[in-house]
Structure formats: structure tokens, C-alpha cells
């Protein structure tokens, strides 16, 4: 990417900064300022950056998509197809902006849940300490941009020893064409709490837009969080996202992230097991076709002893699409008795599909168990024949086997209606012919 293009993109984005600040507190302004300054010291990554080696985002540079406008004419019926009957709490953001009349917050006494500006004063003490502290923006330009433009965002705090049985659905809807939106989530689980968060990116049209999202999750001792992330954007979209998780003693983080593709999508998941005996379970599924590019970079950072991490990532790649998985696992010198496993399994459905998968183990402790493996394959011809010999057409056989490959990941989604929706999506998305 050339220097002018760089300037175009960043300059056009920053032109409209600072955004109008209403009752924002000084600490929040300061956070945005810091992030803004960080944007100034960074450049858009190119393939010369190790972290972006396989992912060429030069097509992003000439786009001068302005921040989305806070306008929303949507009614509940426009969004109902994505509503989940299991979710009692729902926060809806349209093009990154909170829409109160589409959101439902049941039982506000049980937990803190809502839109960031509503808590900036009342919860300043917690927010100042947490917001922007997990997702570092000094080394990630997209996180820096998101933070610089920070205004609305989902804030969810689960009090000590509170179990929220019903999942919380945070629905990010894209509607405007040629805009950039900055979704933001903060989930804090206090000691001994339990919660399930569904972070869901959907599009109402086939428009082109940039979603630049940041999620931060802080789990105190013994807190449990299940985090289901669904990226189902428009095929024209650019989706650039980061999630940073910090885990305290014996906390448990479970993540299932499903990427159904867009023009370019990138997801960075950084999980820090910051104290002893923390556990994380990370499952990912990428399902892409055509000329899509989907890149998942994860980093599981074992900072303290007795941590456990288990990771399984699967990619299903059709057409001339390109999937990237980079799974970094760091075990610090004193993080003894770490137990970590990682598996990357990839299914190529066409001759022109491509996958780059790379485990990246950085192990500095000696008493650790660390297993990892990666496979890349095609559908098994004998399995196809077996199904055909029972009367199933080749297309149905291939779909069923592709679905079966994905099913292991989908089965980890604890919300039945969402799982069904995604099963249908997978079954109908895999229609490629072998030739």
C-alpha cells in the first residue's frame, strides 16, 4: 500500500475527530485523546508486518468511509429474525449506535447492563479502571481508532456471586452503506459470577461498510463467562475486530466464535490467564467462499502456573477464498504446570480454496503439557460414496459432510435456537460442486 493511500484512509477517518462530546468525563476524554495520539504514531499494516503476513488489506486504504450516522428507522420486525428466544436481555446497536427502543433489559437490579454513556458518571470508578485497559491500543491501529471514536457501547457488569441464567444478546446491525462503525463491548464478571454473552454482527443489506469492533472482558476470581461471537456480515463488508480477555484466579472463559465471512474479516482474540488456575476453552469456525478472506489471530497468554487452555479452530473454505489461522500460545517462565492444547483443522472444498494455518508456541517454562496439531484436507471420497450409495445426491452428501465437519464447533454453542440457526446456515452455505 502506498503512502498516499495510507494518508487518505487515516486522514479521512480522523478528519471528523474529535466527535462531539456531551457530558463525557475527563477520564473518558483522556482515553480517547490517548488513542487518537496512538493512531497518529501508527500506520495501516501491510503484509510486511508479521501479524498481517497472509492478510492483504490494501483494498481498504482507498476507502474513505466516514463514521456512521446515529440515525435509525428500524422497527422490531426488521430485526426479529435475529432475536433469540432464550435471551432475556438484548442490547441493539445499529451501525454502532445504541437503539434503546429495540433493546430490552430485564431485571436491571440483578446486573448493570446498558449503553456506555449512561454509566460514564454513575460507574466512573469501575469504567475508568477497566475500559480501554484490556484491549491495548498502542500496537493495534484498529483498536486505537475504535477507542478514539469511542462513544456508545455495551456495558455489562455481573455482580459478585451472581448467576445470570439467560444469555445476554448484544446485536450489532449494519444498515448504512459506505460508512465505518465502531462497535464496542465491555463485559465484567465479578468474583464468582456467571454469564453468557452473545456478540452478534448482522447486516440488513448487502452494503459495503467497515466494522471496526473492540470487546473487552475482565473476569475476576472464579468468574465464568461464555462468549459466543457470530460474525455474519454483508459479503461486501470489511470486519476488523479485536477481543481482549483478562482472567483472574480460577476464572473460566469459554469462547465460540463463528465467522461467516465478508470481503475481508480479521479477528484478534487475546486471552490472558493473568492469575493461577485460570482456564479457557476457545473454539472457532470460519466458513467462507467466493473471494473472501478471513483471518483469525489468537493469542493465549499463560502468565501464571496451573493454567489450562484448550483450543480448536476449524476453517471451511470454498471457491477462491482464503482463510488464515494463527494460534499463538505463550507460556511464561514461571507458568509451570500449564496444560495447553491446540488443534487447527481445515477443510478445502475447492481446488482454488486456500488456507494458511500456523501454530506459534512460545514456551519458556519446563513443566508444561502443550499439544498442538494442524490438518488440511478435502472431503473424504469414500464418505461421499457411502452416502451416495444410500441414495443421497452428491450435493447433499457433500453438504452433509461439510456440516458434520462444522457440527463439532456448533455443538459447543449453548443456545439451542442460535445453534439451529447456524446449522441451517452451514447446511445451505455449503453448496459447492467438486469440479
Amino acid at each position, binding site marked *: 500500500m502506498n503512502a498516499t493511500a495510507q494518508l487518505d484512509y487515516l486522514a479521512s477517518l480522523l478528519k471528523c475527530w474529535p466527535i462531539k462530546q456531551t457530558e463525557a468525563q475527563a477520564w473518558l476524554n483522556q482515553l480517547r485523546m490517548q488513542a487518537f495520539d496512538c493512531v497518529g504514531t501508527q500506520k495501516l499494516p501491510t503484509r510486511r508486518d508479521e501479524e498481517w503476513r497472509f492478510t492483504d488489506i490494501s483494498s481498504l486504504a482507498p476507502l474513505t468511509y466516514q463514521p456512521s450516522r446515529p440515525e435509525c428507522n428500524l422497527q422490531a420486525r426488521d430485526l426479529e429474525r435475529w432475536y433469540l428466544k432464550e435471551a432475556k436481555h438484548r442490547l441493539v446497536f445499529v451501525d454502532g449506535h445504541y437503539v434503546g427502543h429495540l433493546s430490552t433489559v430485564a431485571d436491571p437490579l440483578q446486573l448493570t447492563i446498558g449503553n456506555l454513556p449512561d454509566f460514564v458518571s454513575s460507574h466512573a470508578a469501575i469504567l475508568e479502571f477497566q475500559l480501554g485497559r484490556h484491549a491495548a491500543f498502542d500496537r493495534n491501529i484498529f483498536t486505537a481508532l475504535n477507542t478514539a471514536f469511542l462513544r456508545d457501547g455495551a456495558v455489562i457488569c455481573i455482580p459478585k456471586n451472581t448467576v445470570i441464567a439467560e444469555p445476554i444478546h448484544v446485536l450489532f446491525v449494519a444498515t448504512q452503506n459506505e460508512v465505518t462503525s465502531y462497535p464496542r463491548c465491555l463485559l465484567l464478571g465479578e468474583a464468582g459470577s456467571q454469564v453468557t454473552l452473545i456478540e452478534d454482527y448482522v447486516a440488513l443489506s448487502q452494503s459495503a461498510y467497515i466494522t471496526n469492533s473492540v470487546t473487552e472482558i475482565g473476569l475476576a476470581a472464579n468468574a465464568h463467562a461464555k462468549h459466543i461471537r457470530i460474525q455474519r456480515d454483508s459479503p461486501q463488508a470489511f470486519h476488523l475486530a479485536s477481543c481482549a480477555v483478562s482472567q483472574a484466579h480460577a476464572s473460566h472463559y469459554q469462547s465460540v466464535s463463528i465467522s461467516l465471512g465478508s470481503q475481508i474479516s480479521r479477528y484478534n482474540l487475546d486471552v490472558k490467564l493473568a492469575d493461577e488456575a485460570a482456564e479457557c476453552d476457545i473454539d472457532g469456525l470460519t466458513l467462507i467462499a467466493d473471494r473472501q478472506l478471513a483471518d483469525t489471530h489468537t493469542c493465549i497468554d499463560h502468565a501464571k502456573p496451573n493454567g489450562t487452555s484448550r483450543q480448536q479452530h476449524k476453517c471451511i473454505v470454498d471457491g477462491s477464498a482464503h482463510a488464515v489461522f494463527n494460534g499463538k500460545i505463550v507460556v511464561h517462565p514461571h507458568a509451570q504446570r500449564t496444560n495447553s492444547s491446540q488443534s487447527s483443522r481445515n477443510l478445502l472444498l475447492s481446488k482454488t480454496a486456500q488456507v494458511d494455518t500456523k501454530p506459534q508456541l512460545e514456551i519458556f517454562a519446563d513443566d508444561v503439557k502443550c499439544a498442538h496439531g494442524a490438518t488440511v484436507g478435502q472431503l473424504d471420497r469414500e464418505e461421499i460414496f457411502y452416502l451416495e*450409495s*444410500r441414495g443421497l445426491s452428491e450435493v447433499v452428501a457433500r453438504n452433509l459432510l461439510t456440516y458434520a465437519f462444522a457440527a463439532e464447533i456448533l455443538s459447543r454453542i449453548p443456545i439451542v435456537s442460535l445453534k439451529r440457526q447456524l446449522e441451517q446456515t452451514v447446511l445451505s452455505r455449503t453448496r459447492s460442486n467438486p469440479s
Partner: protein
Amino acid sequence: MIVENSKTILSVQGLRASIDGIDILKGIDLTVKSGEIHAIMGLNGSGKSTFAKVLAGHADYAITGGSVQFEGKNLLELPPEERARAGLFLAFQYPIEIPGVANTQFLRLAYNTVQAQRGKEELDPLEFDDFVREKMKLLEMKSDFLDRSVNEGFSGGEKKRNEILQMALLEPKLSILDEMDSGLDIDALRIVANGVNRIANKDNAIILVTHYQRLLDYIVPDYVHVMQAGCIVMTGGKELALELETRGYDWLHENRRSLSGASA
């Protein structure tokens, strides 16, 4: 049973097939009429499973000669799924495991596909569940096999039962059972053989591929064929199997050598 004037279901003439340029089937002739049970025996590697898979339409084999008529249709022109829908069924010697596909989902999909082809009613999951459980009782199968992935982690004998369950569901015109007796214990053999006998009637036909008389005690064949090096070299009644059991295959070899010697 041999039925007077019954219809020909399968007619194989001079069938030749190769894989990776190696000739495996070298001119097979076989006629199967409705109501009949045929057994095909022969040494390891003689081409029995190849013959079965060629009939089912496995794409790895190239047909290099001959013809196959199935119910009056040119079988070799049909893709495998249409052969199955037309009523051809192969119980595999080594059934494939398909992780992630629930057995019940697979069985129902197969059943409904074949039903639709026959213009018959398809079943929804609940209806199918009742239906399949009845069939499983015949084979004394535990119902938890329904929820597991297709054949995944099934024992050898359980896989064979699952094959025969599919046969019972799909009600084929012609079933080719490739070593359905291997891996079955004595009780299972009796149960599965009884199941097969209940499916057999005057309108369908069965080809049993086996090495053992034991199976043929339960499912009594009308014809026994011996395959050798890609050809059917001898055909007889059920007593031929008994003879093979006592004498092995060597004498055939001698026979054939002297025969070919005589013709030269």
C-alpha cells in the same frame, strides 16, 4: 427361492473393470432373478468386493468392458445415488465412519430420498423415530445407536448390524451383502441372518459375499458362485459351498488348469 418364470433383476455380461490401470474384473457373467439368493465365494483378493463396488457405482473403478442391466436399465450409466434409488443396495465389507452426522439423521435422509423416488410418503423426525425403532427391534439393536454418529466407534459387529438396518429401511430390489458375517458373534449372526431372511421375498434378490458356510446355514442360497482372479469360475447349488468348506479352493485351480490345458 428359485421361482418359475420370475423376472430378471440383474444381468451382468462380460464385465471388466480396472483400478489405476490394473485389471481386477476380467469378464464376469451373472444373472439374478427375483426371489433368488446367490452366494459369491472365493479367495481373498479374487475381486468379490470390487464386483460389489462396481455394481454400486464406485468412481475409482474404470469399466473396461461388458454390460450390466438392472431392472431393464443400463446400470453402468447411472450415478451411484440413482442406482440406490432404483433399488440397489450394498452392505459394505468395511462400513465407513462419518463423525458428526447423527445416525438417525442419516437414516432418515436416506429413507426419505428413496421413498420420494418411489412416490411414497416421507416421514418427519418423530414418525421416523417410531418406524426405525421397530426395525431396530428386529435386529435387536439398542436405540442409542440412533443418536451416535454414523458408525463412529461402533464395533465391527455393530457396523454390520447398522448396514442391515439400512437394508431393512430401504427395502431394496437387490441387496449385495459383502461379508456381513465377518465380525459377528454367533448370536449376532443368527439375529442378523433372521433379519435378512425376513426381508427376502419373491420380489427381491440377495447376493451374499462370504467366506463361510456358517452364514449359508442361516441364509440358504439358491446358487453358489466361485470367483477367482476376477472371473466367476464355477457355479453350483448350495452343496458347492459345503464342498468348498471341506476341500478349499485348490482343486478348482487344478480343474481350471486342466480345463484350460485341454482347450489349448
